[in-house]
């Protein structure tokens, strides 16, 4: 009951790799190599700071419940959740990409309600609603590019990085919805209870982001 530990939820892979230099700027170094370790709770050189290895889409859940005080989550994931218990303090500027509408070049609407296949249901719905357009959403978990090719949907809403996957499947980006990058998120209650520790960490990370 000491209010002196900090737990940070992040996903292994690209986000962890790009976050480690930022954590290093705050003098936080995992004791085990995160890539080879099978541990899900990673100790760091600072005994009171732990890292939790979670799935990228789960990071906001851990932070929302307060199980992790901080976390790293993509803006794409944050736009999909209703999490009211978290703050989005820093744009880490990592894992950058764009959320876009994509489809077959030369696509013309057939007249029926536009069918949109996506993993990002809320973002897609909000985007088309703001344009005043009601669409039919088809929730998919992956391989979105397939949907327009086989007639499951007219267009897709998906993350676009280089655009190579779209191109390889004969699709082209059509409309830009949002720029995506990873954010440092903080549990609202932890922000109050562990304020000094969190602010110090945020400051170091913000500086590292500004200098990087």
């Amino acid at each position, binding site marked *: *009951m*000491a*209010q*002196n*530990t900090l*737990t940070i939820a992040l996903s292994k892979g690209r986000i962890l790799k790009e976050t480690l230099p930022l954590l290093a700027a705050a003098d936080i170094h995992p004791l085990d190599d995160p890539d080879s370790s099978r541990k899900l709770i990673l100790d760091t050189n600072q005994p009171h700071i732990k890292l939790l290895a979670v799935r990228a889409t789960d990071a906001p*859940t851990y932070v*929302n*419940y*307060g*199980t992790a*005080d901080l976390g790293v989550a993509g803006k794409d994931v944050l736009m999909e959740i*209703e*999490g*009211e*218990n*978290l*703050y*989005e*303090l*820093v*744009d880490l500027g990592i894992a950058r990409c764009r959320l876009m509408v994509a489809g077959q070049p030369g696509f013309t609407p057939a007249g029926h309600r536009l069918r949109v296949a996506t993993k990002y249901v809320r973002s897609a719905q909000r985007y088309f609603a703001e344009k005043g357009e009601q669409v039919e959403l088809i929730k998919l978990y992956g391989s979105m590019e397939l949907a327009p090719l086989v007639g499951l949907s007219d267009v897709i809403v998906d993350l676009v990085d280089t655009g190579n996957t779209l191109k390889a499947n004969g699709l082209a980006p059509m409309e830009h919805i949002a720029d995506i990058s990873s*954010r440092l998120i*903080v*549990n609202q*209650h*932890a*922000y*109050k*209870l*562990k*304020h*000094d520790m969190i*602010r110090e960490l945020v400051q170091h990370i913000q500086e590292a982001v500004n200098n990087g």
Partner: protein
Amino acid sequence: MTTTHIWFTPEGIEDLLPPQAEKLEFYRRELLDLFAASGYELIKPPIAEFFDSLLTGSGQDLSRETCTFVDQESGRTMGVRADTTPQVARIAASRLRAREGAPLRLCYAGDTLKARYNRARGTRNPYQTGVELFNVPGKAGDAEILLLLLESMDALGLAPITLSLGHAGLIKRVLSECSLPESEAGVLLTLLNRKRYPEYQAWLNANLHYIPYDLQALFTDWFELSGEAETVIDQTKSLLSAYPEMVAELDGMLDLLALLKAAAPHVRIFADLAEIRGYYYHTGLMFSTYVVDEHDRALVVARGGRYDGIAEAFDNPMSATGFSLDLRAVLDLLAPVERTGQRVWAPMEADPQLHEKVRDLRSEGYEVVWCEATPDGAVCKLSKINGLWTIENDEA
């Protein structure tokens, strides 16, 4: 098909079984005793009433949180309360002497129901326990409620406590000094709500021309205005020095801090003057208390604040502040409650002396249970020895 599902309860709705239910009841009494000892009178608003009255003077959020149904008697829409505060305000404004402008102290404890289940935010069926103080405006009322809030944390055995202060009135006044279009003010509140600092910086650059020169420094540093309360308030005072009325309000907060520190020196007091939780409902000082659990996880316990806006809603010149907490949500944080009464088994016989003895034992604090035959493993039982009903203790 099995029939197991018929005794499943809806999502987020849970039975409380013996040790837990007794615990809730124990702490409910502790709180209500404390409220009574502090001059607060108990009221019991109904579990359901007309939807319109349930929402009077509350934020818009409450309408989505309220379960509704059609009243078979009147054909009007009824709702199950999702929050007790508007009910207490309605009663204070319409039925009690708050009409005459005299101070009124009310407390309550009871079930509420949320239409939607926000798992990370707590239970769907909060057991809301709280107090409301009417017609003690400004600092005096804020201080009384905060002192009672901290005493309530003691009554629950919760420590160490962090008290967090915010001020919706101050933010409302800052915004009223700006010429922000309504849509931009809405965007600003969304950004503050999630502390979206990156988007906030972009927003500020685009909207700086709406903000008076004397307030621009505050807007630039707004996200920095959280931390140890005194430091934050001093910092904010210097940023608002062109606005004596707001500086006076902040001085009032400093006086309050001095009082709280004298009354509860161990409580850590935090302030976040960019906090806008409950912004639409609250009009002045807002506060909440926090603790950590055994996993060092930060949790909110109680919330409250000033909501003088109800005066308008009820067309009645009154001021109001108060706080409440969900006993069900904090139950796991509270120390277990032991049953203290020694169990005694009593044979069910037609002997007036026996029945008198049972009544006496119960009033002395024993837990006396009737039996036809003393069950196996019973430690204490009543036996008639030399013509007198006596407790026989097998352990002795």
